């Protein structure tokens, strides 16, 4: 028997000819911080709206805590949503906004007051009860939206890019705060974002979506270290793609010819077939080493620095080599743009850091 908290079973949502969500199935555990990540138009918001009940699926069904909620209207679902633009009611003050959803829960005035006070202190908005939406900053509005949803003690909190409108500093703060809050109250969060850094830093698990389908569902670490396909590899973090061709298998490894570098034995964790040219290799910029001298790493190439960009904690080097067609990006903490004579350098690669992917 399956005891997953939220079950999404073969859900599709079509708008005319557009398949916004295309036969998606997965499960979310109770108390999990779960993110739906993808570029705009990938179907992540539609999926969230399906969970909230603002859209009904074309096919498939949704189970929450064992009961089928596919056909329930939003007001009958034990879910609450934090909207992208917060949707604070402009005609009533903060306190009334937060009380809004308590009317039908059959609470006494005493209980209502208690719940409102609790949630106000939870989101650190004490003293703002009388304010109106127009008198609040973006961060405060976000807190009101959060409080308004949490005060109903939902089984699942749905968040639709809630940090998108905040400036960078505040966004980083709120990320940390949301994460702490979620761990403290233990409510399941389903979080939609297009910001891969945000998803990776906050979530227990992330579903990367593109074109209405889940491309990969795993922990942030797994997503970054072992992307399942070229889309995920490209979307999460930064990477270099190298042309490759597989040769013969060798147990858990496979022989791969990479650009003009030669043939190497690489771990074949995705079980990619032999003698295929429909594959590609990916190397993260920070896994390579840049130096003035040769190293004894698995691969060491001579190169010329075409461009550098200084980013504070790291410097990015864009390097041209004889063996690799495209310019390679390498990032380093130890060097800056003044370190190299005549822009001559060596880049070193460990075979363990090369991941082999199918092109499709």
């Amino acid at each position, binding site marked *: 028997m399956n005891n997953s908290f939220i079950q999404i079973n073969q859900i599709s949502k079509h708008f005319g000819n557009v398949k916004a969500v295309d036969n998606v199935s997965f499960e979310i555990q109770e108390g999990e911080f779960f993110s739906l990540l993808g570029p705009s138009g990938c179907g992540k918001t539609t999926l969230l709206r399906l969970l*909230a*009940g*603002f859209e009904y699926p074309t096919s498939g069904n949704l189970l929450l805590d064992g009961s089928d909620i596919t056909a329930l*209207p*939003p*007001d009958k679902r034990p*879910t*609450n*949503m934090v*909207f*992208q*633009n917060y*949707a*604070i*009611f*402009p*005609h*009533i003050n903060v306190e*009334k906004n937060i009380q*809004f*959803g308590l*009317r*039908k*829960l059959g609470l006494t005035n005493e209980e209502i007051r208690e719940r409102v006070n609790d949630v106000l202190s939870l989101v650190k908005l004490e003293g703002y009860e009388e304010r*109106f*939406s*127009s*008198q609040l900053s973006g961060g405060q509005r976000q807190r009101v939206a959060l409080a*308004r*949803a949490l005060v*109903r003690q939902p089984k699942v909190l749905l968040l639709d890019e809630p940090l998108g409108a905040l400036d960078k500093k505040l966004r980083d703060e709120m990320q940390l705060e949301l994460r702490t809050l979620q761990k403290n109250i233990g409510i399941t969060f389903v979080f939609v974002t297009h910001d891969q850094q945000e998803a990776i830093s906050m979530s227990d698990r992330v579903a990367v979506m593109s074109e209405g389908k889940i491309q990969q569902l795993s922990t942030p670490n797994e997503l970054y270290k072992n992307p399942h396909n070229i889309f995920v590899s490209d979307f999460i973090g930064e990477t270099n793609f190298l042309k490759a061709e597989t040769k013969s298998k060798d147990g858990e490894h496979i022989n791969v010819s990479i650009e003009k570098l030669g043939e190497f034995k690489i771990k074949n964790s995705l079980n990619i077939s032999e003698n295929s040219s429909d594959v590609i290799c990916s190397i993260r910029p920070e896994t390579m080493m840049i130096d003035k001298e040769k190293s004894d790493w698995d691969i060491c190439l001579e190169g010329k620095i075409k461009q550098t960009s200084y980013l504070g904690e790291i410097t990015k080097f864009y390097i041209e080599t004889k063996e690799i067609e495209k310019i390679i990006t390498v990032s380093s903490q130890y060097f800056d743009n003044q370190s190299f004579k005549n822009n001559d350098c060596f880049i070193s690669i460990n075979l363990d850091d090369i991941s082999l992917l199918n092109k499709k």
Partner: protein
Amino acid sequence: MEQKNNTLLFYTLLYFVFLYLPVLFLPLFSFNDSNFMSFPLSGFTTEHYEEMWKSTNLHKALWASVKVGVVASVVSTTIALFAAKAFARYKFRGENISYGAIMMPFLIPEIILAVSILVIWLSLGFKLGLVPVTLGHILFCTPFAMLILIARIEGFDFSLEEASRDLGENAWGTFYRVSLPLYLPGIIASLLLSFIISFDEFILAFFLTGSDATLPMYMWGQMRFIQKLPHVLALGAVIIVFTTLIVLLAFWLRNLGQGKDKADFGIKIHE
């Protein structure tokens, strides 16, 4: 640059003189101590106003106009509210045709509208009176109400309604607690303007009233007697002031809270 500004100023003044000078003669002569509308003015008097107010027929006509105006404005605003919401919120098949159909009475000459209603009403075997006038006014006011309400509802943040559903309110609760208070300035503006349009309307009333005169019909009747002319002037002056105030109020309300997320809504209902 200076030259150009002066030309525009002159044009603007001329425009306002053209628009409002004739209208201003009404209040002017209504205080003149004479039965004729001619210069020089002979003396100041409020006697016309007193005599006007004594007429019981005026009271009857005023009451008839108020009844028709209230019903017509409430019904047309209600119809227009639902329609405006549908047009602003949803994309649907036949959207343009339905919009055109509702706006049509705006463009059809009123006299044709009046004759059509008259013919249909009589052929159904009904009697003329305030009921067909009210129906005609509903038809005629609805496009105006729609224009006002669409302007209000367009640009409305519909995620507020979704938020309300999400927070446990059903469709009616959402309408009552969220949509209605936020549309309210537009609704009141629409009620006021529809009322004024109905209150001032002549042609439909002329064809359809039968024996129960509305206020414009009463004035039309009085015009036939030269000695009653000053009463009509006094009444006209009162109506002009009243109409102007209502229209100003309606426009003020229409713009109220139009700015995004304004808290100073001015109007607070329930809770």
